[in-house]
């Protein structure tokens, strides 16, 4: 076992993991943060997307030991303390950008990173930028609308 210290949603958490423990499993099983989902198990679907030092990463394609010392943000960590939603969550809510909801935590985290990385996103940019996040309900239209709204580049 190896000891790691991660700052998860602003709180320092130290625990022991096997080196082969994937970050998504540590978040879910060791820290009880089950908002981050496991989807494809093969780095394709993006359901497990979290922010590592502010940038989107697939938590199924990182060992927890690689994240030692890093700041991790999960879907549980983006709303304000008073319960008001993050602007991206609010946009997903207003645009009804979810159907079954399984992909939603990963979509929201990927979208937050995308908007930060690519200022002035248009629809094409959102669709390309989210190509690593699959929605098997195929509810992409409203997801794209929500991201454009949160980016302030369309979708009013």
């Amino acid at each position, binding site marked *: 076992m190896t000891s790691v210290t991660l700052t998860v949603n602003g709180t320092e958490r130290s625990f022991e993991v*096997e080196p*082969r423990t*994937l970050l998504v499993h540590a978040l879910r099983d060791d820290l009880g943060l089950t908002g981050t989902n496991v989807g494809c198990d*093969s780095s394709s679907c993006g359901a497990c997307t979290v922010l590592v030092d502010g*940038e989107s990463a697939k938590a199924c*394609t990182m*060992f927890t030991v690689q994240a030692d010392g890093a700041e991790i943000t999960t879907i549980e960590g983006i709303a304000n303390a008073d319960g008001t939603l993050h602007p991206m969550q609010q946009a997903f809510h207003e645009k009804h950008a979810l159907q079954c909801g399984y992909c939603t935590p990963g979509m929201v985290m990927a979208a937050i990173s995308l908007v930060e990385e690519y200022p002035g996103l248009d629809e094409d940019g959102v669709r390309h930028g989210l190509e*690593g996040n699959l929605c098997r309900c195929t509810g992409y239209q409203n997801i794209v609308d929500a991201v454009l709204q949160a980016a302030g580049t369309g979708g009013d």
Partner: protein
Amino acid sequence: MIPAAFDYKVAESVEHAISLLTEHGDEAKLLAGGHSLIPMMRFRLATPGVLVDVGRLDDLRYIRRSNGTVAIGALTRHSELEHSAELAQACPMLSSVAALVGDPAVRHRGTLGGTIAHADPASDLPAAVLALGATIVAQGPSGRREIAATDFFTGYFESVLADDEMITEVRVPATGGGWNYQKFNRRAQDWAIVGVAVADGGAGVSLVNMGSTPLRASGVEAALASGASAADAAAVAAEGLEPPTDLNADSDYRSHLAQVLTQRALNAAGVA
């Protein structure tokens, strides 16, 4: 799927990484961004006994231009290539190809040295550095050596790198000539079924997923050098090759695609 158990070592320096590789021999693998290796470990296609994590060697994350060359640290991430204004100016093909790898989350973690060392014939960046005539700098127990990209790839996921060597830097020429990269796939985020990179107005042409390694299209380059048109040069793109057959495409389809994409890439690079 859970990877097989392994011992985890954090490299504090390049020298430390090499000493760990020397100590553990072919049991050990380097871990950089992990976006090629971890999926293979999850499918148990790779079961290294020791992982040497070089991902914290931040002094190997840089893009430096001097004279006619751009030197890129091996741990520079794809997203850093994509967003580097200096690289976009000095070697626009490389930043443009980097932006086509995987998706943004993959590009935040994947590294240039890692994708080259992985030597996947279907990957974008190995073919790009091949077309550009890059030099790959590797360090081992007895020092550094420079390897021409044309000599680097030897087989399916295989290269001339020894078990105790790691890539530290990739040098590409700052190129002024026309360039283009064609990536053909059917689904977003997929590997190229076939890809074609054209550098420096056709002086360097390479093919993705047309054999067991990324390949220089030497027939196309020779035809262009002797004055052939883009169409005539592209017609020989698949000559002598044995492209793979898989669920995406059979060998004949890939050969045809290579010709079509080569002509498109040459035309887009300004070769008539």
